[in-house]
């Protein structure tokens, strides 16, 4: 039971995962594993985690998102969080979780633009 069903789409060189349901802890861990596995298999340069539909983000899921970003970074992949609702952002900061070092963008479109910019400048730097 309990297998998560969060589709992870690939567009250009990027993966897009949109969290549409309230994840319980086990599902959140499965989501982390699934995203990392997909990064490895697809060699994606960037990942967008879209939280438009997320209305509560507690320390457990917050930390998992930080972990995904840190692990993806080690694999050469940038994670951008999109669609964070104002109430969720305010609550995260008040809770004491500021997700330092995580890229964010207002929506999916801006997230993709940001990823393009970051991955282009990374490619320039290493060329």
């Amino acid at each position, binding site marked *: 039971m309990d297998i998560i069903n969060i589709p992870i789409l690939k567009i250009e060189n990027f993966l897009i995962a949109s969290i549409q349901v*309230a*994840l*319980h*802890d*086990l599902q959140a861990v499965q989501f982390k594993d699934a995203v990392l596995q997909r990064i490895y298999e697809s060699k994606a340069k960037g990942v967008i985690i879209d939280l438009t539909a997320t*209305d*509560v*983000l*507690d*320390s*457990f899921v917050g*930390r998992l998102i930080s972990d995904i970003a840190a692990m993806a970074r080690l694999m050469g992949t940038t994670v951008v969080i999109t669609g964070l*609702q*104002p*109430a*969720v952002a*305010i*609550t995260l900061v*008040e*809770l*004491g*979780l500021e997700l330092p070092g995580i890229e964010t963008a207002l929506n999916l479109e801006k997230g993709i633009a940001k990823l393009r910019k970051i991955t282009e400048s990374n490619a320039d730097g290493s060329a």
Partner: protein
Amino acid sequence: MAVPKVITIQSDLDIVAARMAARDMAKSMGFGAIDQARIATAISELARNIYLYAGEGTVTVSEVQQGVRKGIEVICEDQGPGIEDISLVMQDGYTTSKGMGMGLPGAKRLMDDFEVISIMNEGTKITCRKWKR
């Protein structure tokens, strides 16, 4: 007034159920989106602590009234190991697991009233409230 709701915490699924119950009640009482998120997040932290440290317990969500002000009250109770030094666990960053030690101090910041009663080897009871503005 809404009828109090009791959620038994025995698995990580119940953590989600507890925070949804708190959020639903907050919403039906007319709390705004930000307060709903604050309340739901605080309850998520406290319910997870019950699950992690006591194994099981209950979360009771009810409507309260004090004079003219209305609020939501959440009582998180367990018969777990108890907390030895309450002022210590209320500090940011203190953890005995591999957590971030943000749950209790964070939940306190998100709510208006926050009281912890704990007796070693008997259990812990946390009562918190948020008032409507």
